[in-house]
């Protein structure tokens, strides 16, 4: 999927630029993209390090586990197919908690492990189970309390108040997740 999209971007963009007589712009764009990507990385790097540090304190002190345990209880309602005390539930909870802090890539290892455990419960190994779909719908609707990267970018571009968007972002993500769960329930009932 990404292959096709990336290819289309480059091919369509290049052809349009050349046809419109903007070969020079195209030339500069190709060369400067490399420099831009490094600049962008430098913007994300320090904030990412900061949050990974804070998150590690939460992880070592057991706070993360405590929150996941609490969350597991709520999650049981959403995942009726998972047997009580099954490991997948706490992995799902950890994944969601880390995602809440806007650290998507740090959450991925927990998420993949959770999928592995859900696959053990799955009867048809090539077909997504109901629990898997519910998990991924919650995951992709992006339950984020602190969009770490967004705030760091706003800070770098000199926002007078980088975190002013937090409340709007929190509400939007809550609505997105709620709608996702409702649609998931509805489709699950429809397709069994």
């Amino acid at each position, binding site marked *: 999927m990404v292959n096709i999209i990336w290819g289309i971007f480059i091919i369509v963009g290049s052809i349009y630029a050349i046809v419109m007589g903007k070969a020079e712009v195209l030339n500069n764009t190709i060369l400067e993209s490399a420099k831009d990507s490094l600049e962008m990385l430098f913007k994300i790097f320090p904030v990412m390090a900061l949050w990974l540090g804070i998150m590690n304190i939460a992880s070592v002190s057991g706070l993360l586990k405590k929150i996941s345990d609490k969350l597991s209880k709520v999650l049981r309602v959403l995942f009726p197919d998972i047997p009580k005390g099954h490991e997948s539930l706490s992995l799902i909870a950890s994944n969601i908690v880390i995602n809440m802090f806007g650290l998507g890539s740090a959450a991925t290892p927990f998420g993949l492990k959770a999928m592995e455990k859900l696959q053990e419960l799955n009867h048809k190994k090539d077909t997504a189970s109901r629990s898997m779909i519910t998990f991924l719908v919650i995951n*992709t609707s992006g339950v984020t309390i602190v969009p770490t990267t967004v705030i760091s970018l*706003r800070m770098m571009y000199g926002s007078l108040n980088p975190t002013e968007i937090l409340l709007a972002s929190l509400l939007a993500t809550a609505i997105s997740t709620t709608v996702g769960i409702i649609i998931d329930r509805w489709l699950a009932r429809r397709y069994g």
Partner: protein
Amino acid sequence: MVSVISNLIIPLMVLLVILYGLFKKVDIYDAFVDGAKDSFDMIAKIFPCILGMLLGVNILLNSGLLDYIFNLLRPVLSFPVEVLPMIFLRPISGTTTLAILNDLLANYGPDSFIGRLASVIQGATDTTLYVLTLYFGSVGIKKIRYSLWAGLAADVAGIVSAIILVGLFFGN
């Protein structure tokens, strides 16, 4: 009021983590340094993706093709067309929308309506297609059933509420 609450979320979170760590007698400083060290690995992992995506996105954006298309749409939309590329690419690639957000913040400023809207859109949803591909792929699931539809519905809900909320909170 909105900005007071927003401004408190991060400090309170940090405070909670530190206090809980001290309470549990954890070497909080060592834990912090250890965790921060992992950022090197992560940065090394995402750099090639950012480089590749920026190349593709910049070529498309600078070619002027999107401007042409979005200008056609401008009269029928009630929000700035500048965020359209983000909306369409959000479910496909996180790094791409991050690159576009980067561009929008640089060009219009983080405190402009466009800057705020783009920030909220980025924070409110996630990359559905990427996540489904990665997670289902990792356990060999081929039939993904209705998951894509449920995921995209959540994205649409997130983006629509982002547009409404930013309009409400920050005015147009």
